[in-house]
């Protein structure tokens, strides 16, 4: 919940004040100070693992510069191993203990954003190894790049060459960027509080009590989960982009209207783009990509998506979810000619929706059971007899959720058509712009799902 806390925005104002106060040349030091302060003000736990990983990886990249041949390969391998080991044990330790060793789970020390910074560091080390850029000699600057607080918790996973120059050069205050940043932050709050957390009320009710619900209940909850996950993750990316933009820093887009995808392959070009491109560049292509024949290509696809599944969480269901996406894409390739173009978006959405059920369910078994009950139980009357309003949202709240989803759809449609809504708003006259902004803020304040009586939802991707 850090990204939507009042304390974070007070902290942000403080860092911004000092950032623009110091001379251009030293502004990066304020970002570093902000990152350290952020970690200790909002998290604290596992800072030494995070710091250790930064120092080790920096040291590895320094060594990579001096070695070549097998020595260089060995150093890179060692570097990746040292960075991955903490992530592997922290994220998979309990699964190994419980499922494989039959022991009880333990409480691991989890550094903030470990899944994200692990990938960020691996990408950096591999790029240095490949000689794509010189390693950063200044450890403080490197630490600032890894720990940049707007994206540390939930990405997007940045690339060194895209982000580092913006962090180091120091940025002048730019009004246009500041206004865009405010729009992004308002939109992020809308996505999180009015859509994701409102949908979560129904999703949690059905998924957490799935034996009690069947048929249309599961259809609705699964559709809402697809929307919740998208709105939630898009919210945190949008908020991160907004916060970074206040410093004049542009973070890469992480989504491109994923539910408008015409195939699962297309979906992965639009969903969590920074992870997809990471997997492509550092797993799929190094494995051989599609250069070694069809069978190897499919095998690489399966490996890549199983790794993607494992990154999202420990357990069979995540492996199954990753594998399902790989098989979807293999199937799409095999049955390419059968594809019915006009329904491709709908079919793609339904396929992804089934995969999300497994992703969200308690276990693979319960996920499959839910999918089975979607088809075997017939109860369409719940759509007409007010039973839907017993799932935790009263009818007025339900209507707000539907309208908000409609608004998200329209915004995405405009973006798909190449029209940027924030650009459109910025072209309006000042009083109308202010009216829209203030209306949006008051609207979110009234209609959001937060505060006393609500079990506030953490950002879903913050848990990965």
């Amino acid at each position: 919940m850090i990204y939507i806390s009042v304390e974070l925005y007070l902290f942000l104002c403080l860092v911004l004040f000092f950032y623009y106060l110091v001379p251009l040349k030293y502004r990066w030091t304020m970002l570093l100070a902000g990152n350290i302060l952020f970690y200790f003000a909002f998290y604290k736990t596992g800072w030494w693992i995070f710091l250790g990983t930064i120092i080790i990886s920096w040291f590895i990249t320094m060594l990579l510069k001096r070695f070549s041949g097998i020595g260089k390969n060995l150093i890179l391998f060692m570097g990746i191993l040292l960075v991955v080991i903490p992530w592997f044990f922290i994220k998979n330790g309990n699964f190994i203990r419980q499922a494989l060793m039959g022991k009880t789970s333990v409480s691991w020390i989890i550094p903030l954003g470990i899944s994200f910074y692990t990938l960020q560091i691996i990408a950096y080390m591999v790029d240095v190894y490949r000689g794509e850029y010189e390693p950063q000699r200044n450890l403080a600057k490197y630490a600032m790049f890894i720990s940049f607080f707007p994206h540390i918790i939930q990405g997007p996973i940045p690339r060194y060459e895209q982000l580092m120059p913006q962090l180091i050069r120091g940025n002048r205050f730019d009004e246009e960027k500041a206004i865009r940043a405010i729009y992004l932050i308002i939109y992020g709050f809308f996505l999180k509080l009015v859509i994701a957390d409102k949908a979560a009320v129904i999703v949690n009710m059905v998924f957490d009590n799935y034996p009690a619900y069947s048929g249309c209940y599961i259809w609705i909850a699964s559709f809402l989960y697809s929307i919740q996950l998208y709105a939630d993750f898009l919210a945190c990316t949008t908020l991160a982009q907004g916060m970074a933009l206040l410093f004049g820093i542009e973070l890469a887009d992480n989504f491109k209207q994923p539910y408008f995808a015409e195939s699962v392959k297309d979906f992965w070009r639009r969903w969590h783009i920074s992870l997809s491109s990471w997997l492509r560049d550092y797993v799929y292509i190094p494995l051989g990509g599609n250069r070694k024949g069809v069978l190897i290509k499919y095998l690489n696809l399966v490996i890549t998506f199983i790794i993607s599944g494992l990154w999202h969480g420990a357990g069979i269901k995540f492996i199954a979810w990753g594998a399902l996406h790989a098989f979807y894409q293999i199937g799409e390739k095999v049955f390419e000619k059968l594809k019915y173009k006009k329904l491709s978006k709908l079919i793609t959405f339904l396929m992804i929706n089934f995969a999300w059920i497994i992703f969200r369910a308690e276990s693979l078994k319960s996920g499959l059971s839910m999918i089975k009950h979607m088809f075997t139980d017939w109860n369409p009357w719940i759509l007409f007899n007010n039973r839907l309003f017993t799932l935790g949202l009263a009818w007025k709240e339900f209507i707000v959720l539907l309208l908000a989803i409609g608004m998200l759809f329209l915004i995405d449609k405009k973006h798909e058509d190449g029209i940027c809504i924030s650009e459109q708003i910025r072209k309006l006259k000042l009083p109308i712009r202010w009216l829209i902004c203030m209306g949006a803020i008051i609207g979110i304040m009234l209609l959001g799902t937060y505060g006393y009586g609500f079990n506030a939802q953490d950002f879903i991707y913050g848990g990965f």
Partner: protein
Amino acid sequence: MKKHIRFAVKSILFVGILAVLVNLTNKILTPKYYMDSLWPTTSTYEGFYDMEENTVDVLFLGSSHAASCFNPQVMYNAFGIQSYNLACEHQNLLTSYYWLMEALRFQTPKVVILDTYTLFTVNKYEPLNTAENCTRKAFDNMKWSKIKWEAVHDICNYDEKQTLSSYYFPNVRYHTRWAELQEEDFRFSSDKKHYELKGYTPLDRKGGYAIFEPFREGDTTDCSKMVPLMEQYLNRIAEVCREKNIELVLVKTPAAAHNISKYNAIKKYADENGVEYWDFNEAKLYNDCEIVFSEDLHDDMHVNIWGSEKISVYIADKLCREFDIGQGKGSEQWAQSNEYYQDVLSDCELKYISDVCEYLAAIKKDRYTILVSVLGDGTDFMTDDVRTAFMALHSDIMMQYEQRGSYYLVVHEGSSHEAASMDKLSYLGSTCNNLVDYEIISGGGEKGGYVCSIKVNGEECATARQGINIVVYSNENMKVVDSVCYNGEIVR
């Protein structure tokens, strides 16, 4: 640079307007409890801030037991005592302490009278001993100052469910109310004028136990255990009173939940700390006040307006004699509210009038809107006296009302609308400057069907029994005062 300054000015203006809008939204969202609520907590606290500074000599604190018991108007009328009742529903001792501190910013009371109900366990599942929403009610109306700041920090320290941000930004607590906002949420500026009762809450039922027996000191030596947090805040209250040279009096109003063990515990505390303790459940005070539990209590826990008059006069007398308070030159603040109090008293008494002619005479007041609808046959019990009483109530055609006919009457500010017919009748109208709408339907049974409805603001208020149904609406307090049916006798 000029561009940056322009941007800064625009930003400040934007934030300023937004702050005003957020504040207004929060004001609308925050629940309000004015004179049309059973427990008008908002009136109690907002009214306190309206009092002239340093005019209140006696302050009352405590739970709803105290709010419905200590009657400042009666005390003023009897002995000229200038008091204010800061009690509210489920007021725990933490709330009492901070409201005492807040009161001391504006007033210099000589005596503080504290009801001790929440010293003992009220709700064991609540960290503050009482419900969260009641604590909120008390603090939502407190002005921001160092005292409120300390209070909310204390509350949030003890109660993990509560957050500081919800006090700074009430929308965090109340935003879900958007779906249930009512008229009173928007008309708070006009409701503010009703502070006449100085925090006192009048209750009008006579519903106490018929078999209540007061206990006697010495019946047992058992001692109940106080809730440690509540005792801690009682100590702080005692300390503040000592520092400010204020007499602290602990009291317990008549309540079935009180017993001799609790009495012993409070008595012991009072003796050890040199403070007075008056317990109206103990036989001596109970009998001195001539309390009749079944007559003077609204329910088993709260005294009604008649019980409050007895106890308030008793306390006022004691304050006068023992603390030399009252009998001063008087104050307009209390003198001018007597008329309103007498109206409230007569509203309460209305419910106990059993003679229809007396009843019709009693409701013939401009401050009432009277809504009448006949269900079934209204002529059986329509004596000449009753017809005459109706005529006096601005009914011109009651005399012509026929057997098994429909009839309705609306009396409002000296004028009336009425109709009689063999068909079904209905009438729509409004009162209180068109803020309150009502709908009357009458079916006498012949051709009009057998139907009766009197709705005020969409809410059914008629008893809908066979006979003449009467609803009395107070224009002043904007609530239904009484709803009866006359069918030979008055039934409720």
